[in-house]
């Protein structure tokens, strides 16, 4: 019997249901990334190299686009921990991707302040424009659409992150234009973080 007599376990969603990674191609850091890694590891006590696992995984993800079992093995060897230790971390944190993503990963904030300012309609417009639902990548491999939780910029709702860059106060009616702009101009199409925008105006 489950913890609450009227509710069954794991009916729709469960953390443990997350899938394991692809094997992927052989992986080692590029010399630049290796140098960067060696630099980062020095920030932590010598017997605490494991602390560098998040930065090390970011380096792998930037290098290869997503995290594979081979990348995990490389990171584990460099840090002197087990593959399972690294896998554990990869599966827990949502910013690590374990499958190839589009050139532009669109992350629409869906939490309260964005939602009441039209984030649902933004997502709906993007779904219509791209012909994919959240979680999917379009057939050309250009766009991946994701819904994420509060991004910490709720005063400029609705907020969308595109890869590492930000686009704020996106009206649903402008969502289609943003896609066209991204195709044409890349990251330059984005409004950026408002603190910087205001500085310009």
């Amino acid at each position, binding site marked *: 019997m489950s913890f609450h007599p009227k509710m069954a*376990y794991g009916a729709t969603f469960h953390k443990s249901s997350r899938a394991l990674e692809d094997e992927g191609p052989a992986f080692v850091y590029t010399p630049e990334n290796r140098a960067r890694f060696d630099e980062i590891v020095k920030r932590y006590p010598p017997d605490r190299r494991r*602390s560098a696992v998040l930065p090390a995984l970011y380096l792998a993800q930037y290098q290869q686009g997503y995290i594979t079992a081979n990348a995990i093995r490389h990171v584990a060897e460099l840090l002197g921990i087990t593959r399972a230790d690294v896998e554990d*971390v990869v599966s827990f944190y949502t910013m690590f991707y374990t499958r190839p993503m589009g050139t532009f990963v669109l992350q629409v904030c869906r939490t*309260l302040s964005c939602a009441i300012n039209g984030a649902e309609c933004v997502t709906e417009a993007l779904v219509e424009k791209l012909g994919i639902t959240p979680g999917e990548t379009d057939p050309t491999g250009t766009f991946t659409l994701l819904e994420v939780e509060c991004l910490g910029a709720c005063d400029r709702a609705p907020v969308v992150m595109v890869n590492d860059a930000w686009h704020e106060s996106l009206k649903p009616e402008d969502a289609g234009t943003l896609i066209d702009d991204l195709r044409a101009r890349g990251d330059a199409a984005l409004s950026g973080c408002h603190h910087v925008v205001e500085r310009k105006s």
Partner: protein
Amino acid sequence: MDPILTKYVREPNSFTLDFYLQHAGYDALKLALTKKPDEIIEMVKASGLRGRGGAGFPTGMKWQFVDKKIEPRYIACNADESEPGTFKDHLLMERNPHLLIEGCAIGCYAIGAKVAYIYIRGEFIHVQHVLERAIDEAYARGFLGKNILGSGFDCDVYVHRGAGAYEAGEETALLESLEGKRAQPRNKPPFPALVGLYNKPTAVNNVETLCNVPLIVSKGPEWYAALGPEKNGGPKLYCVSGHVKRPGVYEASMKITLRELIEGHAGGVRDGHTLKAVIPGGSSVPILLPDQLDTQASFDGIQKAGSLLGSAAIVVLDETTCMVWLAENLLHFYRHESCGKCTPCREGTDWLHQILHRIERGEGQMQDIDLLQSVAGNIAGKTLCAFGDAAATPVLTTLKHFRHEYEAHVKEGKCTLPAPWRARHPVGAH
């Protein structure tokens, strides 16, 4: 009160060291290094500074509890800023990064630490770049590193990037994450002040908290305390978002009322709309109603009114907001963010979301409403960290004040308040 922490944030170069030095930057660090570490802790205690991360615990006391017999000690600055509705640390770090660095250095000096790690949420990559540039500048001019300003005091500050986990904001989960593990909390006690990062004494302080420390050192604890009501001293940053005309970060004395913040600074609700409810401290605190707007927006004032100031994230909701939908939206967040370490929270948040989802869609039954109450009641107070209470709150508080909306959904078999800002066919709800 005129802004202090955010006074220069609209200036073009406010984030540069030159600008900071032109405006008395690092003077507090210089002054601090002429005093004994204990004196700094006494000053912070006397100022009454309370933690700005959510709990409002006195910072001076936290620093005093740090076990000074054990080496090394650490500061872990909490820059995870993931409580829905909160965006103040974002502004501080991006536009005034040297203030945080100065606060970290003084904090390290006070508790006898040599290293501060700033744990920043992964999405703030643009902020991280600003912060890292500022840290490089501070090293280059001798405000960080070895033998700072000839005092013999060494201090390193590093930025550590998180990777998308709300729970990493909980102080012991943050330490686990910093150690390279899942962001899952530890049992308390022992508290981080005794057994923290790498099992060493550690002070975990929020960004805004540390940004207040240079002020206290340079202007004195009495001046600082007098800025606000008793036990609620100093300047406070408020994040106002939702259905207001001018959402944003507003800095004020905690003498200010919610009405002054919402109707004054933020311009009130949009024209033609009326206020329905206010969440005064982030998604995890009880709702306040329009007749409570004259509440003082201090830690103690909001608590007296039956809620919590939390991270000072004020989310304003107008009459278009369906409260069942609101609870569903927030439980989607909590279900997603539960770290999975304890059963009531891991399973309970999923269950709450399921039930809310069917009620919101008009597929619920009357007994579902009691079931919600029962499941939420079985999470609150029964979990390892405060996340459990936080997750139960949106359900319990909407049931308390808006039970009739739940009943109407069941009776009419549909959402009785479909807002114009909602999608016709919401895709995310699953």
